[in-house]
């Protein structure tokens, strides 16, 4: 891995859920720090996995320095809080304090901002962009959301752009429109029909609240739109590399292959595959002469070894398949560990395989 992405300043770790993305993202940041860089790992996970992985009791959405890294390097970690990032964006782009207060106090906003389409993904990108712009780090590692929909986070900036540039907010959701039926008479025929249907489905009171939220948000969206575009371009820069994390299990490998195709399609820079929890060290058929050993134990050792060989063969064919696809790009296999990986020592141990 040494030569391949040292010059990259941003590494994005993607892969399906439960493959160890967070752990490996942290390992990559740790590796950078131990090489003397100032690195940071950003994680989005609501279950605070990184906190566990780094042995920290809590992570905030501000960078915190991981203790116990020998200088001159430094490793920071940050947990992304979608709602707080959203709040901060609103504070930043609101045209006035009044607008800001109205948004933040809107009941629907309070409940729903974290559910907004693609918002988690978008906020991850947003925070990545912010951190990159601040320029404090030599290496930024992003752990992506555990999405079932592969590269939702790549679509996120585009989705936001769509919503902000095409939404009916322009002609349909002027603030106050839903305040009562009074306004409808003045509207074009088409929208009257639409409004009537919306009213029938949800009632004007709700639509008013919804339209208020969306139109308030719209009031600062021009800045937002620009931002989405910058993020979109950032991801395509040469110094941004994508690492695909998987386990040798079939479903995870299928996901990784799908991600790989998407990365090609989106014109992103692929760094390599990381195959986590492999058993390939148990491929060998070689017998072993034990000093003096009971029959039952000997048999059980054989049976267990046979099980591990089956897993090793599965892992090897998964690795071969990925190698064939990724051609000359590197592939790292990380053996299954004796213990859960949740502290610096075990992260350091994993580092040797990269």
């Amino acid at each position, binding site marked *: 891995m040494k030569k391949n992405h040292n010059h990259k300043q941003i590494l994005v770790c993607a892969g399906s859920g439960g493959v160890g993305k967070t752990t490996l993202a942290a390992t990559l940041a740790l590796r950078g720090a131990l090489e003397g860089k100032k690195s940071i790992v950003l994680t989005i996970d609501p279950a605070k996995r990184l906190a566990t992985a780094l042995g920290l009791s809590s992570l905030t959405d501000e960078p915190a320095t991981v203790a116990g890294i020998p200088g001159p390097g430094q490793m920071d970690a940050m947990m992304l809080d979608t709602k707080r990032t959203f709040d901060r964006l609103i504070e930043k782009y609101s045209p006035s304090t009044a607008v800001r207060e109205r948004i933040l106090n809107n009941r629907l906003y309070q409940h729903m901002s974290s*559910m907004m389409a693609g918002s988690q993904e978008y906020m991850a990108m947003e925070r990545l962009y912010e951190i990159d712009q601040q320029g404090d780090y030599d290496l930024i590692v992003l752990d992506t959301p555990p999405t079932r929909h592969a590269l939702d986070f790549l679509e996120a900036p585009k989705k936001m752009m769509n919503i902000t540039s095409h939404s009916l907010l322009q002609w349909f959701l002027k603030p106050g429109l839903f305040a009562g039926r009074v306004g409808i008479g003045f509207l074009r025929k088409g929208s009257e029909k639409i409004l009537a249907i919306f009213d029938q489905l949800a009632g004007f009171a709700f639509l008013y609240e919804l339209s208020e939220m969306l139109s308030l948000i719209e009031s600062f969206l021009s800045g937002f739109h620009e931002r989405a575009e910058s993020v979109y371009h950032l991801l395509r820069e040469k110094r941004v590399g994508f690492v695909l994390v998987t386990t040798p299990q079939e479903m995870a490998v299928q996901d990784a292959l799908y991600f790989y195709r998407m990365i090609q399609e989106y014109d992103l820079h692929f760094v390599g595959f990381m195959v986590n929890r492999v058993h390939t060290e148990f491929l060998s058929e070689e017998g072993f002469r034990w000093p003096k050993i009971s029959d039952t134990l000997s048999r059980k050792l054989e049976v267990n070894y046979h099980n591990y060989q089956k897993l090793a063969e599965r892992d090897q064919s998964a690795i071969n398949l990925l190698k064939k696809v990724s051609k000359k790009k590197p592939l790292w296999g990380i053996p299954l560990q004796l213990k*859960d990986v949740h502290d610096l020592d075990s992260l350091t141990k994993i580092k040797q395989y990269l």
Partner: protein
Amino acid sequence: MKFNLSKLFAKKLIIVSGKGGVGKTTVSLALALLAAEQGKKTLLAEINSEGQVSQLLNEDIGYPEREVLPHLWAINISPKLSFEEYVLMQIKFKGLYKAVFENKFVRYFIEAIPGLGDLMSIGKIYASVNNYDLIVVDAPATGHGVSLLQVPSIVASAVKVGPLKTHSDGIDRLLHDENKTQIVLVTLPEEMPVTEALEMSAQLQKMALPLELLLLNQFRTSPLTTDEAEEFGSLPVGSPQGKAMSLELARADLSELYLNQLKNALPEVPLVKIPFLYTPEFKLAEVQVVADALAKELL
């Protein structure tokens, strides 16, 4: 009453959730297979998935549902199509739907409404509940799973009148009905999945949603007796066989550790172990093995 399969299958809805990669799809399919084997008309519902069940069954599963095995139907719920279906039910005219909802501006507006896709997906399940004896939902991973369960009550409290209000209220009542709905959490004997399972159970409790069963998947039991373990401990470990056994014993220890941790944290929730399978492939046959293991544990 002891917790068993008939208790599980006596209700209408099983929602299976857990961290990504813990085997939610496998467990959902295994439960659905068992229910179908018992002659229950069963629906297995994935939500906007990439087709995991299709892969396992080697059948193309989409929207609406189709029969895949005797008594077993499967669906991959599309939020978009369930929205269309819902609106059509309300306004009755396809032409009008097309004119209104396929308007570009309206579409982007709809996409921008937070949680609407989730509401429509869970709404589709609500709408199907009377057509089946049992619905097994392969729900999204923990975080998203929680918002899926939460969205009906949020909408119900925000919308004051109209069909959307009635709809959300109905879904929310179904989810909170202990006689009809139960949530099954799947986890692994590893730190992070266990942490997430405990966090989710706390959230479920806060939402007053019924967590009925914890499944500890990929459980490994030590292959050695105490005497053999002692004998093994005195041997040099340098060989691959020795290393494989050390790994296996370490994993068995972790399995035991997390089993106890879960039992202590949630003493009132029944907990069932599913053994780790040493198979190179994971297809329908392996799901059947998991189903058999579940059936044995839940006699």
